[in-house]
């Protein structure tokens, strides 16, 4: 339990007013409160995903000069419930070529790991409830790396068992992608663990309140982690696994009805999950702003931290959604290059810099950051210089050039 580290910050995983029968461990160490928390968490994930889908469609709409869902409920707010209801009543097809056993199993294997990872997220405190976290687990960091990786198995099962070549290609891409991006992600997380000297997520958040947010202390680590998680959940521009214009939805091609709905749910739940993890690990969790405790404003975070956590999470979700409607998709070899040639070295640099910070203090660390940025700038400049100018020549086939500006005098 995280109480030993959290005691001085007056944060308790279990509020004092809770009756003993609720928190007393029953079968397998699970208490009644745990079960209630599980149900609440599941409902939260389902509802948040619905809101998230609606939000994504609205964001997409306004980015693309249109309105998004509008007529189903006020401002289209009933759009996601309608989608879910429709998917529930849709016929569940199993193709003839599909594997009878593996095919129906795959959606659950994709969703369950994502949901399980939600258990260790420290959501932060709310007035009377103490610190919301379903299982304050000492090996939380290891858990949150290990469990979502099981998603890959589910996706491979989905892709293989569908008996469709597009989905097979999709699952092959998933494997390549997951393996490549796990590595930089884990190494970026090592920096976080070193800073907090703990693997417990609650402790990591609390250590950030003391030392400053990780996003400032290890910006490279944050970037690497954010991009790697974006890739792991197959969001654009890393969505090669589900690329609609190439392999028409990848592993999900043959799924229909609610089975496909579960994949969709898992995809959006993963966005929520990874934003929550980024918030907890790098953005100071439930703290209002960095250094608020030093200014004597720590009580705000202690009382309403949950709201700030959610706010940060939603901002990250919006950024992820925004990127989806801006960027083209990377190709598979470019994706691999990006992981192995850019993210992995960057993650190692972050690791070394964090070690310098821990051992030698801030000044050498700042020098290191400066050197890294300078090196990056040089590399970028040489890369830019190596690129040939990308213009087309204009064959001027007429002697006089007419300026192409507006506002010429016009006869009517």
């Amino acid at each position, binding site marked *: 339990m995280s109480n030993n580290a959290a005691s001085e910050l007056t944060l308790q995983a279990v509020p004092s007013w809770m009756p003993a029968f609720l928190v007393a461990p029953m079968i397998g160490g699970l208490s009644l409160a745990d079960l209630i928390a599980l149900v609440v968490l599941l409902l939260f994930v389902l509802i948040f995903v619905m809101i998230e889908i609606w939000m994504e469609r609205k964001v997409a709409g*306004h980015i693309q*000069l*249109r309105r998004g869902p*509008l007529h189903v409920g006020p401002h289209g707010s009933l759009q996601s419930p309608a989608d879910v209801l429709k998917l529930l009543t849709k016929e569940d097809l199993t193709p003839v070529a599909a594997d009878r056993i593996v095919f129906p199993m795959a959606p659950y294997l994709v969703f369950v790991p994502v949901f399980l990872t939600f258990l260790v997220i420290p959501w932060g405190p709310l007035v009377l409830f103490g610190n919301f976290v379903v299982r304050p687990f000492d090996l939380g960091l290891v858990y949150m790396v290990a469990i979502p990786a099981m998603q890959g198995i589910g996706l491979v099962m989905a892709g293989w068992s569908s008996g469709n070549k597009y989905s097979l290609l999709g699952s092959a891409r998933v494997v390549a992608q997951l393996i490549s991006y796990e590595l930089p992600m884990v190494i970026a997380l090592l920096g976080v663990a070193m800073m907090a000297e703990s693997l417990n997520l609650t402790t990591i958040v609390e250590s950030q309140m003391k030392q400053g947010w990780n996003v400032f202390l290890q910006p490279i680590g944050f970037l690497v982690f954010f991009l790697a998680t974006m890739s792991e959940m197959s969001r654009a521009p890393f969505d090669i696994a589900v690329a609609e214009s190439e392999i028409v939805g990848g592993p999900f091609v043959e799924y229909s009805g609610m089975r496909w709905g579960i994949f969709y749910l898992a995809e959006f739940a993963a966005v929520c999950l990874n934003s929550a993890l980024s918030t907890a690990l790098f953005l100071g969790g439930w703290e209002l702003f960095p250094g608020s405790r030093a200014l004597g404003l720590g009580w705000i975070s202690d009382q309403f931290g949950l709201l700030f956590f959610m706010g940060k999470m939603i901002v990250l979700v919006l950024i992820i959604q*925004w990127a989806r*409607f*801006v*960027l083209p998709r990377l190709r598979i070899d470019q994706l691999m290059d990006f992981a192995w040639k850019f993210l992995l070295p960057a993650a190692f640099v972050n690791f070394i810099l964090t070690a310098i910070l821990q051992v030698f203090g801030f000044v050498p660390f700042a020098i290191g950051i400066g050197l890294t940025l300078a090196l990056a700038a040089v590399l970028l400049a040489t890369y830019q210089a190596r690129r040939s100018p990308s213009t087309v020549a204009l064959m001027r086939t007429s002697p006089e050039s007419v300026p192409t500006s507006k506002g010429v005098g016009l006869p009517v």
Partner: protein
Amino acid sequence: MRGVLGGFFQTLKSFLTKPVTRLYPYEKPPLEARFMGAPSLLWDDAVDEVVCVACNICARSCPDDCITLTGDKYTDGKTNKKNIIKDYFIDLGRCSYCGICVEVCPFDANEMSPHFELSTYDRMTLVYDKDQLIEIGRGVTRRTGKPEPVGPLPGILDPSTYR
């Protein structure tokens, strides 16, 4: 602004501009004066009968062969035409809305109406008979072959629709 950031910048800009969307069932589309919807038969209000004299030129000129008509001897004597249409069918499912039938009509008896909402549950209902064609032609005046009316046309381009 170039590169990846340029895209983010551009989308942010369009996020903050007004959407161009026209909310169709609630807003009428700005149909132009020349818009060619379904062809319609014109009604001569002066003598209260259809203008068409069943000369069959439109049916023969139709590139899709979607017009079928039969004529009848004209006996009313209100005008000096010899024939009048008995039946007139246009298969609006097959029609390509090219306006050739209007163009070739020597008697100014038809015009393209602005009627475009041609959705049905049964494709046979897209075959419009004489009464329906007259009905959609109500209020439509012959425009083809006539000089352009002066004055602002409906549906002038609104420059504020974009940025």
